[in-house]
């Protein structure tokens, strides 16, 4: 049985708690990185993280992109959509194709 976690600032993740998803608040890149590392060792299959935090913890997120668990997925926080999530999709396209596609 695997679990789901949401990492982000308090306002962004609060709504998820009522669904029975575990929420973790973090406000800095280091906090997020150490949280991701601890959660990855436990039984978490999916970790959602706000785009703003993900930007500061990109190295750690990159580390887990090649293993099957956990899947670290970027979501927009209350402060709005930064487009970071879409660019992470584009990054995997770039890696696969070998060059950036113009679209």
């Amino acid at each position, binding site marked *: 049985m695997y679990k789901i976690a949401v990492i982000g600032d308090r306002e962004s993740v609060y709504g998820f708690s009522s669904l029975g998803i575990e929420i973790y608040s973090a406000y800095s890149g280091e906090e997020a990185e150490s949280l991701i590392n601890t959660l990855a060792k436990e039984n978490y299959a999916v970790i959602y993280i706000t785009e703003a935090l993900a930007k500061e913890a990109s190295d750690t997120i990159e580390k887990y992109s090649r293993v099957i668990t956990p899947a670290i997925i970027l979501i927009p926080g209350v402060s709005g*959509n930064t487009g970071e999530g879409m660019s992470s999709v584009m990054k995997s396209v770039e890696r696969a194709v070998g060059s950036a596609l113009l679209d």
Partner: protein
Amino acid sequence: MAVMNVNPTRMQLTDLKKKLVTARRGHKLLKDKRDELMRQFLELVRENKELRKTVEDAIKRANKHMALACADMSDESLDVALMMPSQKMSLDLQEKNIMSVMVPKYDMKFKTADKGDIYSYGFGFTSGDLDGAIKDFADIMPLMLRLAETEKTCQLLASEIEKTRRRVNALEHVMIPDYEDTIKYITMKLEEAERSNITRLLKIKDMMLQQTYNYETI
């Protein structure tokens, strides 16, 4: 021309020829693998983009409700309302095989079957916007899981494609030309040895004929 560091012998030649055949076959197979992975990847990535757009919009809407609820209620009452969630969500993870890349497949599981269990508070002291926000979050959860599934699959496929592409390129531009050059080099070397042997034999024959019969040689 990059000739490998080998002795120009017949044995090495047969060895290298066998290796060249294997390398060519491996190259073809890997190229096919890369093309098929690419096809699947592009399909998935398109889906991923669509899903992401939908989910991001939905989260934005839910966050709007949440912001209203936060503004409406005091921090304490919001804390109290969301302190003890009665629903618990977990995942079942199955691994699916796409071209020998293991990708995850998630199944959502709830502790209780009751849909109303996501509202873990009395309605008397909370804002209606909170109900709306929670309903929104509950509605997008299946989509968010689907997004997690496709996005992870895309990431895993991308790194597999990258690896395969490197192998194909290494075979095509380094290994196979090297083998071909070395085979050519050994063949030429062997032919040269053959020719020099014949010349030597002819010369010795001439010398022997002259010694025994005193023939004039050119």
